[in-house]
């Protein structure tokens, strides 16, 4: 890297790893855009891509904490399966008899039970790991087999569908918030971003710390607000197909006005990812819980000697992973509109790969939430791009596997150069 550019990045205080990942994502997107003759970088495809990534992205944020504490969770795919199945049974076979079909209580209670179940199972696995000192690899490998078997057992192998119409909206395929609400959200997000930048600067000045030059603050603000508005514009550019609109007007006994168009806006599942990402970033950076997770990952003995209860911390980390898996299960089953016993199969590997590609070190102590989410997007872009180009599924797997190894190798080289261990 030339001195000038290096200095610019330093002044802006942008994480070079983040920059590299965004670069990789753009490169993959451009290659597929050309290879598919211009269909990859379209609002429609990017919209679909975010829908497909949502479930893995939610789990990847939790996996960051698990790996940072020097653990691993192999059970999440199966856990997603059994939770999806239980939620399916509850919303289809039990709750409609109590509240009546289509009642909003159905999806609320279903989701609540799912998250509770996820946290309980995750917490139990965490207890085995933290208090009984069984390695997480073994506990969750056992969990992988146990919960997958359990998922089958809940429904005797049948697929439960159709799911509750309100619940299905959470998957995003049919649940979007429209153009106006999307722009309002973008404005609120931009305002909060700017407020955050100003507030941080003010606090640093009040304590007499060095701050970035003011132009760098403006540049950073412009980049962030630009990114928020750009993503919103893409989501708002994907138009609902005319045929679907026509059908909707006919259903209400109206005729569609000539030239009428409507765009989807943000899918609810993507909003869930955004919410989870922000919440998990705050947890990681700004709470004691998050601080202790990283402290334990950096030096478990030091954490213990500092009065941190690392066993209980392990339970909490796995319970959080379980709760996030349940949220991912909501997104995944809602998107398909059905809960089958193979739901979430191999997801544990996609999620671990996303976290690792996102810069989470398996040795512990290092990892970021945004990195894991970007990692999930890179993986999904690769997979769906290859699908569009017509690469066979076995070859897809081989390429994804190779990319994972390559990504970790590049990461090792990067750490060596920057002097991180």
């Amino acid at each position: 890297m030339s001195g000038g550019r290096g200095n610019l990045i330093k002044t802006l205080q942008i994480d070079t790893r983040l920059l590299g990942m965004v670069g990789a994502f753009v490169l993959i997107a451009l290659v597929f855009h050309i290879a598919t003759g211009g269909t990859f970088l379209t609002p429609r495809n990017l919209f679909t891509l975010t829908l497909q990534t949502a479930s893995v992205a939610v789990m990847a944020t939790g996996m960051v904490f698990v790996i940072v504490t020097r653990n691993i969770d192999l059970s999440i795919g199966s856990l997603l399966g059994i939770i999806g199945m239980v939620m399916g049974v509850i919303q289809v076979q039990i709750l409609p008899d109590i509240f009546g079909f289509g009642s909003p209580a159905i999806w609320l209670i279903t989701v609540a039970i799912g998250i509770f179940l996820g946290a309980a199972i995750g917490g139990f696995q965490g207890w085995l790991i933290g208090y009984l000192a069984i390695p997480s690899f073994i506990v969750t490998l056992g969990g992988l087999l146990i919960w997958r078997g359990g998922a089958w057992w809940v429904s005797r192998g049948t697929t439960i569908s159709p799911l509750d119409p309100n619940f299905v909206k959470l998957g995003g395929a049919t649940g979007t918030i429209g153009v106006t609400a999307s722009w309002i959200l973008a404005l609120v997000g931009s305002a909060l971003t700017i407020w955050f930048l100003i507030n941080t600067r003010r606090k640093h000045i009040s304590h007499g710390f060095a701050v970035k030059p003011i132009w760098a603050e403006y540049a950073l603000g412009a980049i962030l607000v630009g990114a928020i508005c750009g993503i919103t514009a893409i989501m708002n550019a994907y138009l609902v197909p005319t045929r679907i609109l026509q059908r909707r007007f006919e259903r209400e006994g109206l005729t569609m006005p000539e030239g009428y168009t409507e765009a989807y806006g943000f899918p609810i599942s993507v909003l869930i990812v955004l919410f989870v990402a922000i919440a998990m970033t705050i947890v990681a950076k700004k709470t004691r819980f998050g601080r202790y997770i990283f402290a334990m990952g950096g030096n478990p003995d030091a954490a213990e000697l500092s009065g941190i209860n690392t066993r209980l911390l392990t339970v909490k980390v796995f319970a959080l992973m379980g709760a996030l898996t349940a949220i991912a299960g909501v997104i995944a089953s809602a998107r398909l509109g059905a809960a089958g016993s193979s739901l979430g199969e191999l997801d544990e590997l996609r999620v671990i790969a996303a976290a690792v590609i996102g810069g989470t070190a398996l040795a512990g102590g290092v990892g970021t939430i945004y990195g894991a989410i970007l990692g999930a997007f890179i993986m999904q872009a690769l997979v769906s791009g290859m699908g569009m180009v017509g690469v066979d599924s076995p070859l897809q797997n081989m390429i994804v596997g190779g990319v994972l190894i390559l990504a970790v190798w590049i990461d090792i080289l990067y750490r060596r150069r920057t002097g991180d261990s």
Partner: protein
Amino acid sequence: MSTPLLEMRNISINFGGIKAVDDVSIDVMPGEVVGLLGHNGAGKSTLIKILAGAYAKDEGEIYVDGKKVEINNPRDARDLNIETIYQTLALSDNLDAASNLFLGREITTAFGLVDDTKMEAESRKIMARLNPNFQRFSEPVRSLSGGQRQSVAIARAVYFNARILIMDEPTAALGVHETAMVADLIKELKAQGLGIFLISHDTREMMELCDRVSVMKNGQLIGTERVEDVTEDDVLSMIIMGKKPGETVDA
């Protein structure tokens, strides 16, 4: 004779049938430095880890200001204002100086979130006193030198108003200049009325800094002597042969 600031009476601990610490009693007065000497494996570190709450004793009692206390974990020790600087430093390498300094005792905002800016400001204040050259507040401590890391560990103990300070080989990883700095600091803290337990292999340094020395061998206390009553050779023979000055070794 006033009450000791801290007293450990008849402490024993077993590890798999081996008595790592066997019926040892030590104490420290306010404003006093007590040195713990002995070979590796003599039980010094184990003894002070009991005091710091890292190990649970099997037998014995601990008194602070003459009152019996229970120390079952590091939090208990901290609540009694017992602070420890470990030989291994006990820092999380991936966190910055301020995060390490406040680990387990973070300053939080009104919303319960950790206040990094405030913690860094406080770290800068204490560091200005302990090690004015220290400037690398936002880097992970892994990138710091041994001396800089040591200052972080010491700052952590000093910041929280320790009354009893345990220092396990605080100068082992340091250069000459930094060692002198730690020695000055010990004198300053002593003048403030802290009770300090100091572990070191450097007998000469101990004779200089300590008021009394307690010598351990094979988990047992050989004896405690005022430094003005003994010579360095006396102390060395206590360490090596396990006998008090004037005693003869049983053949």
